[in-house]
């Protein structure tokens, strides 16, 4: 409704406006005018109503209204205020920077100035300004804002362009002929801008800003290498960290860094720390030559290395956990093997003896025989039970015959048909238990759950992996995450570095396939990062190789805790540079005055105003950029040379000043030839400030000396008045000692010859340098080196022209052409230097910002806080997306589950369209569309760092869980074995003793002393077996721990111990089984250690406080076996040995 009213109002306003402004007889004028106004108002209304951006809508509408108001000269340009505002602030109405704000203000101010008082020039200046402001916004934009800024640039350029064209047209074409066509073009452009901006507003979003995508800055990835590569403009940059283990530099992904060879154009910058090798940067030799830049890079490297260190630490944790899990599995297997051994040598052997004894028992009467018969039956059953137990503990066939017989035995006990297809070739022995248990567990599942009629086991070794596949035709539907059996298998397989895949569609059987690598994965290379690491060898061990500077420009940086800093920069400050500035400025101003003032043809600039223009442009630009360099040597080291070049360039003007003081003209004459030397200096010294090779330094000095020698000698012997070719200054030479025209001419000829040679050599050398350089190096140096080379060629040509025709004449075409080339080359050189200065400055700023940022962000896990501050929402939370498991984790790697976002806005953070993280924040607090602007490059780096870290931490969590499962699974299995033993063989043996007693009693009654004696022996033997089984059962799993808890179990240990064990306080409460078990195992090992070390007593205390069980065993001077510590570790506890006391803290929930 509101919209309709507004639309009608817009139509009305339009018609009204046209009625006031134009005659109806002139549709040629008012129709386009009306169309423009309506377009503006229409797009404004549409933007207001249908797009999410009301600011743009309002500005479009206001522009339209102002357009209709433009019926008098006073209001003709009124619409340009909101129009400029619209373009500069697009999308939205808020200015993004002070410059934008200023531009908008100027736009409004210009709009209210009546048209009559405007000049065409002012229009052109303002139009250029608008384009510049929009362009700047585009250049500085990051992330999603780039698109909006691009639209602004297009709109601004269109508007600016049409304004400039209109102004030019009005200036060129007299009268009013151009007005109407220009107006038409203008109107078309306005419509285009309105429609274009409206379209760019994009599609409407849901009412609440959710699931907004924030694209991170455009750096390819977040690593330090990439950041540095961008900053120093060398995409080939490599960063290597010293690895003591590998005795080489390695990158953070573990690849070895190859050090460059001489002449390859690639250099190595070594970063040392406390005299030890730390890192190396491999880069184009041209890009890192400024010591300040190198310093900054080194600082950034060190700071980033802190991140790498943290990552490495976490990775180390990962490796340790993985190793711990492996150890636990091995320990469990070993123990089962040992128990099996005990079983075989103890109860099973005794059972065989008992069987033999009973086989020899005769007589005693029928009743006795009856009991004896039953005893034998029980005995047989007990023997079978023990056989099963032995198999469950450890398959003997595996130890004795290997995998094949073991699997045969295994398959024998499976009720369904099993096809075995086993090729043991190439399977390492240490993988056999894993393969066996894999098959055993899989087949057990087949019998238990699958109701299969047929199963198939395939084992083969291909290349460097063993493939194990168990398939069945059963009911399927096995859930890898559900049953602990499959989970336990996965853990076991992972522990040897393999992978397990389960495919089990319901009703279509189950396929379980495992790939086990034959070579276990080795932990990654260590990355030295911190002074805490004692393993870094002294530098000299590695140094000899590098000392020769294989990489050409081998710089070395020693890290200091503080960031490079202004204090360093002070060293480069020239004394009295203000004085230099004043003098040189004065000189430049005087030179300008001179050039403008001289009309006699004694100088090139005097020939024409064009010549004067290029002459002044080249010199002034050089002086200006040179002075900037003097002030900011860190960013432009060759500044002084550039200033000198500019000063010397102006010298011929002073020489040719007819009315000038004789001394001045003479000095200028001496100075002028130094131009060539300065060019050589600048060309060879750029960008570092001094020539890199000593050969080059010598060359510069030689050229300067030769020039000085020539110039001074010539001044001493040449009387300009006597010189036939003199043209510029034929009167003054205050240095004249004696007139020797012949010598002067010879000197000139020699000098000119040398100039030709030096110019050509310099040009060739610079071109070669550019050709040899890498792309990065070329990109960095060509804007300076190419103009220097051209200038050098210009000097050579100039000298050659003078050799051919000593009578120099600026008005002659060949000399004029040479002069033009020289002047333009110098102007281009100034431009190139300005560009180089700007670039270097940006690089340094970016670097120090990076370093500072890294310094701030050194503590991981703080990103949430940073983003929360940026958003102004303290409750904001970051969830990192881990694609592999497909879940969100917090910065510490903890699973965030489904990430509850009820009532919260979610902002997806993406990099190149790939989900990186999601930011959950209050929708009301802030507009997340501002986020891209607030996320700086370092934050982007941080997001990546933190995501990597979160990913690794999540792995750590997974591994920790897996380790705990390994312990639990092994304990559960043993508990089951103990129960089987208790319920099976032990009861059978009791029954045997019972029957034997009865048989014996019957024999006694029957009066058969022989039978009675045999039966008495058998009873004793049976009792012995019972006792042995009791010990075995206790070894497999202490029943009292399950039955009665920790305290009785510890007391029981003390009862049986081989040394006096004092049991202090032990809580009577029950704890989770894994906790009780871990403490128990620790005490068992503690007693064992103490007994073996010959201690005369020990004391055990267990204290429960704040959810932690603290176990102390004293005196103790030895650490228990690693797997015992691992067991405690698996529960999140730790074991410490200190002060003759072993203590363990076990969290118990």
């Amino acid at each position, binding site marked *: 409704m509101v919209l309709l009213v507004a639309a009608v109002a817009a139509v009305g306003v339009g018609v009204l406006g046209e009625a006031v402004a134009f005659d109806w007889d002139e549709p040629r004028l008012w129709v386009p005018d009306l169309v423009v106004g309506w377009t503006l108002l229409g797009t404004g209304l549409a933007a207001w109503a249908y797009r999410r951006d009301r600011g743009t809508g309002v500005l479009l509408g206001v522009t339209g209204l102002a357009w209709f108001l433009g019926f008098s000269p006073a209001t003709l340009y009124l619409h340009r205020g909101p129009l400029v505002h619209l373009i500069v602030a697009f999308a939205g109405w808020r200015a993004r920077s002070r410059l934008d704000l200023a531009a908008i203000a100027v736009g409004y101010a210009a709009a209210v100035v009546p048209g009559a008082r405007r000049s065409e020039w002012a229009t052109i200046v303002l139009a250029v300004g608008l384009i510049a402001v929009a362009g700047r916004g585009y250049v500085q934009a990051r992330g999603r804002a780039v698109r909006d800024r691009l639209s602004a640039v297009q709109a601004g350029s269109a508007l600016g362009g049409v304004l400039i064209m209109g102004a030019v047209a009005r200036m060129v074409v007299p009268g009013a002929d151009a007005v109407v066509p220009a107006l038409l073009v203008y109107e078309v452009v306005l419509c285009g801008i309105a429609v274009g901006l409206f379209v760019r507003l994009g599609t409407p979003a849901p009412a609440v800003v959710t699931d907004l995508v924030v694209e991170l800055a455009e750096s390819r990835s977040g690593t330090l290498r990439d950041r540095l590569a961008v900053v120093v403009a060398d995409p080939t940059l490599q960063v290597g960290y010293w690895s003591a283990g590998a005795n080489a530099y390695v990158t953070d992904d573990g690849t070895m860094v190859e050090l460059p060879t001489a002449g390859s154009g690639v250099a190595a910058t070594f970063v040392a720390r406390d005299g030890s090798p730390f890192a190396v940067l491999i880069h184009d030799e041209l890009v890192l030559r400024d010591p300040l830049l190198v310093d900054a890079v080194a600082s950034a490297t060190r700071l980033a290395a802190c991140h790498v260190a943290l990552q490495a630490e976490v990775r180390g944790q990962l490796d340790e956990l993985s190793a711990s899990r492996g150890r636990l599995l091995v320990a469990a297997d070993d123990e089962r093997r040992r128990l099996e051994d005990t079983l075989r040598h103890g109860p099973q052997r005794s059972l065989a003896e008992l069987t033999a004894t009973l086989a020899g028992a005769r007589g005693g009467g029928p009743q006795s025989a009856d009991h004896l018969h039953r005893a034998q039956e029980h005995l047989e059953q007990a023997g079978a039970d023990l056989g099963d137990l032995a198999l469950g503990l450890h398959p003997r066939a595996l130890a004795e015959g290997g995998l094949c017989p073991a699997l045969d035995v295994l398959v024998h006990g499976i009720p369904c048909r099993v096809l075995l297809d086993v090729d043991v070739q190439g399977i390492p022995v240490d993988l056999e238990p894993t393969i066996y248990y894999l098959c055993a567990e899989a087949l057990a599942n087949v019998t238990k759950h699958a109701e299969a009629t047929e199963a198939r086991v395939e084992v083969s070794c291909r290349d460097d992996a063993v493939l194990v596949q168990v398939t069945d035709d059963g009911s399927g539907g096995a859930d890898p995450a559900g049953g602990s059996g499959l989970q336990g298998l996965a853990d076991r397989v992972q522990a040897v570095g393999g992978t397990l895949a389960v495919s089990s569609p319901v009703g279509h059987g189950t396929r379980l396939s495992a790939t086990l690598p034959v070579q276990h994965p080795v932990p990654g290379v260590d990355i030295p990062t911190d002074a805490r690491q004692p393993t870094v060898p002294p530098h000299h061990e590695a140094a000899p190789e590098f000392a020769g500077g294989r990489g050409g420009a081998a710089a070395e940086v020693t890290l200091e805790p503080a960031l490079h800093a202004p204090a360093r920069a002070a060293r480069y400050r020239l004394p009295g540079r203000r004085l230099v500035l004043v003098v040189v400025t004065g000189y430049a101003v005087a030179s300008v005055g001179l050039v403008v003032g001289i009309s006699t043809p004694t100088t090139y600039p005097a020939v024409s105003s064009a010549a004067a223009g290029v002459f002044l442009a080249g010199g002034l630009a050089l002086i200006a950029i040179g002075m900037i360099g003097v002030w900011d040597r860190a960013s432009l080291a060759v500044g002084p040379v550039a200033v000198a070049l500019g000063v010397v360039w102006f010298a011929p003007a002073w020489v040719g000043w007819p009315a000038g003081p004789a001394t001045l003209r003479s000095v200028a004459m001496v100075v002028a030839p130094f131009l060539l030397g300065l060019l050589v200096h600048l060309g060879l010294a750029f960008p570092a400030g001094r020539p890199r090779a000593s050969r080059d330094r010598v060359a510069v000095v030689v050229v300067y000396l030769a020039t000085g020698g020539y110039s001074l000698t010539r001044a001493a012997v040449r009387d300009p008045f006597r010189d036939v070719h003199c043209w510029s200054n034929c009167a003054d030479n205050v240095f004249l000692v004696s007139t020797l025209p012949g010598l002067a001419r010879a000197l000139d000829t020699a000098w000119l010859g040398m100039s030709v040679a030096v110019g050509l050599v310099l040009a060739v050398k610079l071109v070669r340098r550019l050709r040899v350089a890498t792309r990065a190096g070329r990109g960095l140096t060509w804007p300076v080196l190419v103009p220097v080379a051209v200038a050098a060629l210009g000097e050579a040509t100039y000298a050659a022209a003078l050799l051919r025709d000593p009578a120099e004449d600026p008005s002659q075409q060949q000399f004029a052409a040479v002069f033009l080339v020289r002047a333009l080359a110098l102007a281009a050189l100034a431009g190139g230097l300005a560009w180089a200065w700007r670039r270097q400055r940006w690089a340094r700023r970016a670097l120090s910002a990076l370093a500072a940022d890294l310094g701030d962000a050194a503590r991981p896990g703080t990103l949430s806080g940073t983003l929360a501050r940026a958003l102004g929402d303290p409750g904001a939370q970051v969830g990192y997306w881990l694609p592999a498991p497909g879940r969100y984790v917090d910065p510490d790697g903890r699973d965030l589950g489904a990430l509850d976002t009820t009532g919260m806005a979610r902002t997806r953070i993406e990099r190149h369209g790939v989900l990186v993280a999601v930011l959950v924040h209050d929708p009301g607090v802030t507009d997340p569309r501002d986020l891209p602007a607030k996320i700086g490059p370092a934050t982007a780096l941080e997001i990546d760092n933190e995501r990597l870290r979160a990913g690794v931490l999540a792995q750590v969590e997974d591994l920790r869980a897996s380790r705990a499962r390994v312990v639990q699974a092994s304990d559960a299995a043993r508990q089951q074995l103990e129960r089987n033993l208790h319920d099976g063989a032990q009861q059978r043996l*009791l*029954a045997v*003793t*019972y029957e034997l007693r009865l048989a014996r009693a019957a024999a006694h009654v029957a009066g058969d002393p022989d039978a009675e004696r045999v039966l008495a022996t058998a009873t004793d033997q049976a009792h012995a077996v019972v006792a042995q089984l009791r010990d075995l059962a206790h070894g497999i799993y202490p029943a009292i721990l*399950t039955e009665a808890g920790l305290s009785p179990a510890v007391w029981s240990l*003390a009862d049986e111990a081989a040394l006096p064990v004092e049991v202090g306080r032990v809580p009577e409460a029950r704890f989770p089984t894994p906790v009780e078990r871990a403490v128990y195992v620790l005490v068992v090992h503690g007693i064992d250690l103490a007994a073996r070390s010959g201690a005369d007593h020990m004391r055990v205390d267990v204290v429960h406080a704040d959810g932690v069980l603290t176990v102390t065993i004293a005196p103790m001077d030895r650490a228990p076996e690693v797997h015992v510590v691992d067991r405690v570790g698996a529960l999140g506890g730790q074991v410490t040995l200190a002060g003759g006391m072993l203590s363990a803290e076990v969290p118990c929930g």
Partner: protein
Amino acid sequence: MRVILAEDSMLTREGIARLLRDAGIEVVAEFADGDALLKEVALTRPDVAITDIRMPPTHTDEGLVAAGRIRQEHPDTGVLVLSQYIEPSYALRLLAERPEKVGYLLKERVFDVAILVDALRRIDDGETVIDPTIVSRLLGRQRRHDPLAGLTDREREVLGLLAEGLSNRAIATRLSVTDRTVEAHITAVFAKLGLAEDPAAHRRVLAVLTYLRDDR
């Protein structure tokens, strides 16, 4: 004598039942778990309840729990606890709860019908019965300062029998000495060990067992 039996292993349960019946002891009922035992005890009030420690459903200490409740709720009914394992803790726990009319024997021992019947009678008479293996384990315990070293062999023997729950008279019979001699030995032992002599036989068992276990 009326006896009730709870044991989850059928072989053992039937074996014991048969032995008892052969010995002329009435087996009122047999069960495989503790809850049923408790209900039946409340119903039939037997003289002694025999129970395994480990029974369904949790296979932990059901038997001990049941024993404790029986002693508490039906003081007239004695309890004999059977176990596969030699655990002094169980004996102490049993005695600590109600130190009379209780017994703790290893399973393999009860198939010796003489031992079983003797134990049941003693329990029925209000004495305590502790398996000799448990006592010998406690006596054999490693100690830093062994107070038992000061005992004579005969005194040590008396201490062991005393810990098994035997009365003075039974000890005298076992050792073929007079009651007086036994009393003298006991006084000497208690004096040497620094134990306060308690005339109540069942309490002194607990005291001795606790003393033997506590290493000070």
